[in-house]
């Protein structure tokens, strides 16, 4: 059992690496990259060992917690959910660090880069490990900080600096909602304990929260007229935080701009790890979601809509990284949809969406890294200027192709042949179908199918525009060095094989998450509270056509993009032009920029409230000065009384005497 008490090392080692690289980085070769690589490797090994242990006896969960301050604690919880995430995060981060050694080789601020990525990994591992909601929030914000620092890595570029600010602010809006959820949760628990929390009870720990779910659900408040249960409010506020972090519909604007940072950063943070933190939050607090009426439905709808919405925009992007960014948003939409399907398939939803999360991490990281090596070689990010890169960079082309196939999701349902993307996305679509069947609400299913179609269209558009055809501009493309291609190959293998191997064992491994020594909940009892009636049978019993639909759609997408971009048989100029309203709408990204920055941030907040506030403040200032001014005026006025003539003084004395007598006489009469 020695491995359990090594668990705290997982986040601590990368944090140590951050401190060392930050200060000693300059002196070491290529910015001291070796330190974080070693640290993350050890964390990966430890988490892998713990996962192995957990696989044997899933009931035995690692859980340690120590007193932090007042009634709050700091602790570690590794249950199947956390173990899987730990291994994925450390593994992907390790590969990307190795890749970054090559990618950042000629950048002069390498120590700072490696320090920040090491800190990011530590924070992300912290998020995954934490056993209470407060520590979760603390690491959650630290992850936000690292993304701010890394997006704004090349801070000389004003666009990078403003992108970083935009990213931090938008995620901050989500974090505020998350904080509000924690505050509401704490207040309710405080009420439940009616004012005095017994010694040694850590209020915000997950087991404590889950054990009080029934009481919290009982409390409800009036908001805008209709009755809302506190649990729904808390879960939706948590979901608000997840929307902010994972770039779901209203708060996704920052993710495309986050591409300003180096590609390895995009790969690590905006593909594999950070953005999935939102999904992980919903997964970690899944019992609360399932016990809260309506909240899972809202998760599902937003997830589905984002999937479609992002995919439409992905179609028209010309910058290679922005296409992948929208693809990430779309896939995250899928994961949220998967969790939302918990309303119909219960706990397995967590397994499905986590499975998609892990696979997506692999092939999306791979896509970004390939894009990185293409940009590294070609020098531009605009796919219209690329073409025929495949001949020059065979390995990158091959791995990119595998990743695209995985993303589109090719495979034979029912058998274990297929790309990992297929095995993870398919159950979600089937669950959507089941959801449609049981609640007559077909939107999620429709959105997911159309999104799948668009996904394969835009990914293969990218493949054909960059790798096939004649080179449109002259570039001295050369294959990336070994240090970059090796991680590509490893990720390529995983993208191909991982799905098939672990599709069943992954599912039931994750079922154990909420039934172990740390916390044991009866999902069905909670579901009743949430008014969700879980479908009795698992997926797989749909008619044949539904089973094959995802694969058909993937092929259709491949065919369409091959015709348009591969063979160039259709003349796209009529569609891809300014006057085509739909294209313009998509190209301008539904004018979000205009809505968010110009109107909301600048007009309403800045001009409206701040400048108004400043004028009020000037009013206060003027008031204080005015009082001072009155006294000076009065002083000059009264000063004139002193005429300097003796006779006037005498008159003043005498009048004073006579008036005083008369006045006193009056006052005496009155009182």
């Amino acid at each position, binding site marked *: 059992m020695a491995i359990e008490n090594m668990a705290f090392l997982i986040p601590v080692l990368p944090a140590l690496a951050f401190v060392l690289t930050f200060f000693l980085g300059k002196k070491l070769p290529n910015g001291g990259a070796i330190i974080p690589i070693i640290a993350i490797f050890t964390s990966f090994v430890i988490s892998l060992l713990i996962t192995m242990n957990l696989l044997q006896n899933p009931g035995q969960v690692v859980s340690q917690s120590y007193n932090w301050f007042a009634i709050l604690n700091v602790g570690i919880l590794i249950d199947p959910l956390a173990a899987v995430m730990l291994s994925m995060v450390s593994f992907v981060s390790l590969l990307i660090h190795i890749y970054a050694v090559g990618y950042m080789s000629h950048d002069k601020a390498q120590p700072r880069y490696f320090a920040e990525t090491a800190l990011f990994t530590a924070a992300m591992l912290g998020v995954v490990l934490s056993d209470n909601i407060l520590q979760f929030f603390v690491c959650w914000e630290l992850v936000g900080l690292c993304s701010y620092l890394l997006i704004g890595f090349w801070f000389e570029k004003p666009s990078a600096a403003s992108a970083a600010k935009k990213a931090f602010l938008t995620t901050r809006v989500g974090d505020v909602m998350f904080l509000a959820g924690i505050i509401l949760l704490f207040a309710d628990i405080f009420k439940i304990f009616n004012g005095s929390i017994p010694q040694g009870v850590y209020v915000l720990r997950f087991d404590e929260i889950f054990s009080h779910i029934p009481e919290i659900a009982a409390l409800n408040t009036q908001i805008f007229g209709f009755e809302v249960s506190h649990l729904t409010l808390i879960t939706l506020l948590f979901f608000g935080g997840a929307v902010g972090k994972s770039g779901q519909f209203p708060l996704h604007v920052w993710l495309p701009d986050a591409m300003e940072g180096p590609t390895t950063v995009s790969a690590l943070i905006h593909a594999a790890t950070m953005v999935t933190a939102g999904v992980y939050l919903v997964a970690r607090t899944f019992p609360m979601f399932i016990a809260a009426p309506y909240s899972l439905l809202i998760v599902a709808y937003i997830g589905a809509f984002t999937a479609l919405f992002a995919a439409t925009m992905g179609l028209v992007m010309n910058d290679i990284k922005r296409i992948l960014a929208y693809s990430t948003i779309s896939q995250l939409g899928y994961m949220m949809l998967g969790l939302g399907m918990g309303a119909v398939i219960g706990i397995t939803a967590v397994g499905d969406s986590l499975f998609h999360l892990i696979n997506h991490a692999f092939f999306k990281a791979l896509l970004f890294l390939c894009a990185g090596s293409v940009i590294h070689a070609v020098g531009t990010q605009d796919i219209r200027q690329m073409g025929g890169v495949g001949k020059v960079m065979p390995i990158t082309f091959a791995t990119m192709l595998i990743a695209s196939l995985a993303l589109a999701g090719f495979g034979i349902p029912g058998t274990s042949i297929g790309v990992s993307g297929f095995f993870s996305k398919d159950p979600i679509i089937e669950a959507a179908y089941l959801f449609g069947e049981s609640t007559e609400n077909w939107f999620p299913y429709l959105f997911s199918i159309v999104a799948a179609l668009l996904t394969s269209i835009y990914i293969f558009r990218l493949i054909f525009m960059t790798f096939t055809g004649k080179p449109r501009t002259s570039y001295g493309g050369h294959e990336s060095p070994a240090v970059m291609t090796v991680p590509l190959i490893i990720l390529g293998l995983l993208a191909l094989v991982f799905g098939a191997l672990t599709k069943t064992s992954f599912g039931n491994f994750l079922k154990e998450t909420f039934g172990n020594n740390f916390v044991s909940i009866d999902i069905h009892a909670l579901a009743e509270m949430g008014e969700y009636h879980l479908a009795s049978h698992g997926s797989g019993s749909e008619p044949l056509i539904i089973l094959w639909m995802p694969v058909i759609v993937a092929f259709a997408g491949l065919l369409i993009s091959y015709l348009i971009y591969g063979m160039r048989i259709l003349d796209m100029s009529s569609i891809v032009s300014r006057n085509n309203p739909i294209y313009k709408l998509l190209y301008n990204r539904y004018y979000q920029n205009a809505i968010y920055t110009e109107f909301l941030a600048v007009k309403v907040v800045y001009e409206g409230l701040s400048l108004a506030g400043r004028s009020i403040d000037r009013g206060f200032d003027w008031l204080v000065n005015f009082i001072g001014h009155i006294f000076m005026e009065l002083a000059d006025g009264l000063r004139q009384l002193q005429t300097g003539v003796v006779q006037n003084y005498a008159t003043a004395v005498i009048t004073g005497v*006579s008036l005083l*007598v008369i006045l006193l006489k009056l006052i005496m009469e009155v009182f």
Partner: protein
Amino acid sequence: MLNKHFTIMQILTAVYNFFRPRIAGMVIAILFFAVVITSIVYTSWNSVDQIPQNPMDQSNIKGIGMLIFTDLVVPFEILSIVLLSTLMGAIYMAKGDGTQ
């Protein structure tokens, strides 16, 4: 003897011209006077009914003398200092520096 006959009108106008610039002072003085007179009138002074006439020596110099040097000797002494200091001050102020 008046070599010119002054008509009542001329006297009145002269009086008016005299008082016109000083009307304010006039009003205040009359106000003060009124206040003093009313307060005197409304007080009932318990004065003795008959001033004690001491038929044999009309003057009360002896009484005053006795009083000055028994009860009120302190003011007397202070008065001497007053006169001395006023004298000194007045001479200092009045004495020119011998030029004109």
